[in-house]
C-alpha cells in the first residue's frame, strides 16, 4: 500500500482547525492582559454606593 497525501477535504479541515486554535490563542493574547486588570475603584465604589442606597 503506497503512502498517498490526505484528501483535499481532510487537509482543509486540518488547516481550519489549525487556524481556529491559533485564532483563539491570538485573541487571548490580545485581550487577556487588559481584561484581567483590576477593576477601577471608582466603578466598584459606584456599585457599592448604589447597593447602600437600596438597603
Amino acid at each position, binding site marked *: 500500500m503506497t503512502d498517498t497525501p490526505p484528501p483535499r477535504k481532510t487537509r482543509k479541515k486540518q488547516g481550519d*482547525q489549525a487556524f481556529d*486554535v491559533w485564532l483563539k490563542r491570538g485573541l487571548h493574547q490580545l*485581550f487577556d492582559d487588559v481584561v484581567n486588570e483590576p477593576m477601577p475603584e471608582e466603578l466598584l465604589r459606584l456599585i457599592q454606593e448604589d447597593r447602600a442606597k437600596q*438597603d
Partner: protein
Amino acid sequence: MSDTFHDQIVNILPKLRVQALALTRNRAMAEDLVQDAVCNALSAQTSFIPGTNFGAWMHRILRNRFISDLRKKRETTDIDDTPQSLLAVGARHDDRLALQELDAALARLPDDQREALVLGVLEGMSYQELAEISGCAVGTAKSRVFRARRQLETWLTADTPSASRRESVKNISRKTLSHEKNCPSPVRNGLNHGTVEQNRSRAVVAGV
C-alpha cells in the same frame, strides 16, 4: 434581592470588559463604556426581571450604549488609535508580527461580527446567547461568527504581496496545532460551518 443584583453586576464586569474592548478597540473607551453601561443598568434595575438571563440583559445594555454613543459621535474606530498595550508584550518577534496582523484584521471587521467572534471565542458564548445580546436571530448570530472567522482566515492566510507575514501566521498555526495534538484538551468542539450542530450550538473554537 438588590444585593444579588449588585453582586451579579460585579461578577459580570470582566465579561463586559471583553465586549467593550471588542466593540471599541480602545482601552480608555472600553472602560468608559463599561462604566456608562453599569450606570444605565443601575438606573434601570427595576426593569430587570429576577430569574431571567441577567448576562444577556447586561450585555444588551452595554451594546445599546455603544450604538447610542456611536451615533452621537459618528466616528469610526481608527486602527492607528489602537493602544499598543493590546499586543502581547512578551511575544516572540514572529508571534508579535502575527498578532499585529490579527489586531489590524480585527479592526477591519464590522463591529457586530467582531463582537460576536470575540464573545464566542473568548467567553464561549453560544449562538443563542449571542443572539439574545444583539437582538437578532440565532442564524444571524451564527452567520456573524462564521463570516468573521472566514474573513480573518482569508486576510491572514491568503497568498498576497505580504506573503512573509501571512507565512508567519500559517507557520505558527501549524506549530500550534502540532503542539495541541501533543497536549490533549477535554474541549474539542470546532466552529460548525455547515456541519451537524451539537445540542447547545456552542460557538467554541477547537483547541484549548
